Each structure stands twice: as C-alpha cells, then as structure tokens.
C-alpha cells in the first residue's frame, strides 16, 4: 500500500498540482498581508490615533449606528448586537482583538480562509485525482494490474489526506513567514478569548476564558484541517463519479461557493444547516462569532461534516469498485 500511495503522491507532484497550490498561497498571502496592513493604517488615519481602544470604540459606535437603520434585516441586527457585546467585552478586559504580529495574522487568516479559500485549494488538489485517470485513459492501465480496485482508490484517498495536511501546514508556515515581514514575528503568547457559547440570541460568556494565542492557533488549524478534509472527501467522491476534471472541479466550486453565499443570503432558512458547506466555518465557534443559522454549534457542525464525509467515502468506494470502464 505504501508503494501505491507513493505512486499517487508522485503523480500529484509531477503534475505540478502541488506547485500550483503553493504558488497560489505564495502570491495571495502577501496580498492579504498588505490588505490587512492597509486596513489597520486606514483605521488609524480615520480615528487619528493608533490607539486600538479608540478604534474598537469607533467600531462599536459604527455598528450601533447601523443598528438604528430600518433597512437592516432582523437577522443582521441580532448578529451585530452580539458582535458589539463581544467587542465591549474585549474593551473591558483590555484585550486588543487585532493586536498586530504575525501569529495574529496567522489566526485571522485561517479564520477567514476556512470557508472559501482553503476549500478551493483542496478542490484543486482533489478534483482531478480520479477523474484525470479517466480523462487521459490511464485508468485502463491502473485497473488491469493485479491490485484490487479498492486498494487503488484507497491509495488515492490516503495521498489526498496527506497532501491536504501538507497544504494546511504550508498555509500556516507561509502566512507566518510572509506576514512577519510587516507585522513582526512576535505575539505567540498573546492572550486570546475563547469559550463563547451561543444560546438562542444570547452570547453566553460564563465559559469565556483566555488562552495563549499559539494554543488558539493550534485549535483553529486543527478545526480548519478537519473541514478541509471534509471538502477533500466530498471532492474525491465527485471525482470518482464524474469523468472529466473540468466537470468535477466545476461541481465542487459551485457547491462550495453556494454554501458560502447561501449562509449570507438566507440565514432564516433553518434546514440549510444540514448542508455540508454551510458547516465549514468551524473556527467561528472558537472565536465566538455569532452563528449564522440557529441550531448550529461546534458538535453539530463536526457531526455534519463527518456524516457527509462517511457517506461520500462509501459512495466513492462502491461506485469505483463496481463501475464498468467504458471510455
């Protein structure tokens, strides 16, 4: 089996899939770093001070102003109110939420990337894993070896798990190294709040506590890794079901993006929470960001991702072992 996994990794690397992903990261992370830098600078200019307390206070005022507008839908009002509560908590406890430094960027980056950016990168890796073998006809060579079909597929899946893990590691490393150039490399021990619990409209802060940022980052990357694996698994199934890479990638991009869009467009649609790609934002639970659809929680989202992944795995293996190779 190790030999088969080696084969799959070899193909992934030689096809330059991995290089593409690393290049995308290497180009985009500096852009995000710069964007973050500009945002901080602009806020400082607007408020006329680099005092983060003043910035936070301004943010709270802005949000309260927005609340008074009658055009804001109720769902958004609820959300904003909760965010304000959280920001006031930071203020009272003298914690700078945007405290600069590379580790803070690493944390923020993964929180933002988990819903769309990381899934897209995982799709690039996973979408053609099986479909490309059909596309260029090499599946005929692969399945006429003295190796059971399920072993061939398992080797591909293991290769995918390994490469997704590697990508997560590279994402963390690159975002630390690149953003550090501007923000400095300090801040691992910075205290970060976590332990928020959402109960109906209330943000329960009784469980809230401070943990060092490095610990928080490990949790956050762990959760992001889990949701990346779920996306990878679904994408893997699509790659088995569909014969060409373009279709496979298209289907997955559409699904991931609509997951992201739907959660913003239709937060009142309750049953949407059973859709896998609504549940990707696992890090939000850690950060105490208000949930989009009520009834969602960390255990709920973890369960959804696991169930969808399991079903996808079963479908992928059954179809792959039974399918006639006709093309």
């Amino acid at each position, binding site marked *: 089996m190790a*030999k*088969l996994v*080696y*084969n799959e990794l*070899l*193909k992934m690397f*030689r*096809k*330059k899939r991995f290089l593409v992903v690393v290049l995308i990261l290497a180009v985009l992370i500096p852009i995000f770093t710069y964007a973050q830098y500009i945002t901080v600078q602009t806020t400082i200019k607007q408020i006329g001070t680099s005092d983060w307390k003043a910035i936070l206070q301004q943010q709270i005022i802005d949000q309260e102003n927005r609340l008074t507008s009658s055009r804001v839908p109720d769902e958004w009002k609820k959300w904003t109110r909760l965010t304000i509560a959280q920001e006031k908590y930071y203020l009272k406890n003298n914690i700078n939420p945007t405290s600069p430094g590379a580790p803070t960027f690493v944390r923020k980056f993964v929180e933002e990337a988990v819903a769309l950016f990381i899934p897209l990168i995982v799709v690039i890796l996973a979408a053609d894993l099986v479909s490309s073998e059909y596309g*260029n*006809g*090499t599946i*005929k*060579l*692969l*399945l*006429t*070896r*003295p*190796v*059971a079909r399920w072993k061939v597929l398992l080797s591909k899946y293991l290769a995918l798990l390994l490469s997704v893990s590697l990508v997560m590691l590279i994402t963390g490393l690159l975002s630390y190294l690149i953003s550090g150039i501007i923000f400095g490399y300090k801040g691992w021990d910075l205290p970060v709040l976590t332990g928020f619990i959402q109960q109906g409209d209330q943000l329960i802060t009784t469980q809230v506590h401070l943990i060092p940022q490095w610990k928080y980052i490990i949790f956050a990357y762990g959760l992001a890794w889990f949701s990346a694996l779920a996306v990878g698994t679904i994408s893997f199934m699509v790659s088995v079901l569909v014969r060409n890479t373009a279709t496979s990638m298209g289907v997955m991009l559409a699904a991931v993006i609509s997951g992201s869009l739907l959660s913003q467009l239709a937060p009142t649609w309750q049953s949407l929470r059973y859709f896998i790609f609504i549940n990707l934002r696992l890090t939000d639970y850690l950060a105490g960001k208000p949930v989009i659809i009520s009834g969602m929680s960390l255990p709920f989202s973890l369960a959804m991702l696991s169930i969808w992944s399991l079903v996808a795995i079963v479908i992928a293996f059954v179809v792959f072992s*039974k399918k*006639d*190779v*006709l093309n």
Partner: protein
Amino acid sequence: MEAVLSVEHLTKKIGARTIVDDVSFEVKAGEIFGFLGPNGAGKTTTIRMLVGLIRPTSGSIVIGGYNLQSDFLQAIKQVGCIVENPELYPYLTGRENLEHFARMIDGIDTKRIEEVVRLVELDKRIDETVKTYSLGMRQRLGIAQALLGDPQLLILDEPTNGLDPAGIRELRAFIRRLSQEQSISIFISSHILYEIQLLCDRVAIISHGKVLKTAPVVQLVGEESKVEWSVDPLPNAVSHLSNLPYIKNVEQLGKERLMVHMPVEKIAETNQLLLSSKIQVSAIRPMNQTLEDIFLEITGGEGIG
C-alpha cells in the same frame, strides 16, 4: 495444446442493447490469435471484459487456469495489455511510467525494467518525458509496461492504429519476435484484414457482437488463389483451361482476360500448356484471396465497414 485464454458464452448487455452476444473462443499457448471485425462489432468491449474493465453480463473468462471474475488478481497477473491507445502519464518520463506500474506488481526489480526497455529498444529516450515521444515510441512503451509482469498472454487492441507504414512493419516484426523468443501468446484485435492475415496463426471473425467463425488463417485463406490470365485467343484458352482437372471456375473478365481458380504452384505448368497450344499469354497475375473475400462470403456480402 493448452489454452491460455478460454472464453465461453461471453455476453454483455448495456440497457436493451446486446453489445457482445454469446462469444466463445480459445487462445492456445504460444499462438498469435487475431480478433477481426469492423468498428463497432464489439471488439473493444470484449477486450475490456478480458482484462476486467467491464463486468460481463454472463459467460466466463479463464486466463491461465484462473477464472477472471472469481479470481481476478491471479488471472490478471497472467495478462499484459494495451486497451486502445497506449495512454501513459505524459508528465512522467518513460522510466518513471514503468516504475509506477512496476510498483503495482509484486517482485519487479529495476533489472526487469531495464530488460523490457531493451526489449522494446527505448534505451536512448527512456529518461525523457512521455509527452516528447512519437506515437510509435508510446506504443513501444505501452508494450514495455504490458510485458513488465512477464505475462503469459499479451492483449493488444488495434495496435497499429495511427502508426505510419514503417512503424507498422516494425511493430509486426516485434510482435513476431515476442511470440517466438518469449513464447508469449498474443491476442490482437484489428479491423484491418491484411494485418491479421500477415501476423496471426488463428483468427476469430466478429460482427454485430457475434463470432461468425474461428479458424486457422491458412485454412480460411486456403491454398487456392484466383489467377488472372491475359490470353489470345480467348475461346481456345477457355476450352483448354476448363479441361484441366485442378482448375475450377473459369470466368471471363474482358476481351482478353480470364479469372481462374487454381493452385498457385500450377501456374508455370499451365502456362507451358497454353503456349504449346499456340495460345499467347501476355500476363499472369496471381491474386491472393484475402480475408475480405472470406468475410463477404460468411456475412453474405455485408462488407467489413
């Protein structure tokens, strides 16, 4: 002789369509077996069933004594194949491709890889990526990967497709060498009659999913040939020829031309005879009977597409 591949009552239905219909044949040890039929006759579907890519609706396939459906791993170990085009990974080098497939079979070392590379004469270009290869080279690399596992049976699906005449000749010589030196049984499908006739010991003719006939090529083609004679005067020649015991079916083609069914080795004797009867012979053209004729005979003039 022992059968390396034995196919019995093989049938494949997709939806309401029967693509392969009750096909049975045997490939014996060491022979080159031709599988001949027009495009769309069910050749490729049959081959895909032989190598386990498609599940038969019914019927059995036994390779080297192992049933393909119930004992896939053992059965497929005996087989090397190229299904349709030799599709390898274009972004890997020839050697990397071979190593990739070697990792999927137990007990293949670098020595074996070197061996097959030398056998297909790719030594010089083996470390270049496959996308730089010509079709002929890809075909040879395809054969190299098929030979890696030291198979008893080599299955080639339309191996000459897309090759230029020189490439085809080269491939034909190579296949003959393989069959003689390595004593591998070879199963070749083709829609080109000439190819099969030049290369194969026995042939199965398939049309519309059914095997119409299985027989040795020599037996199908027969010892008899058509010979075209240009003679003057014609009526005399006709009466003379019709009297000869080994001549059948004298057919008048034109003012001076005759088509005669006769053994080729009797041409000189017949010529002598005509000359001594003061009949002028200006041309003798033996026409080998091709499988095309046989195909037309069997199918009743349907043609081979």
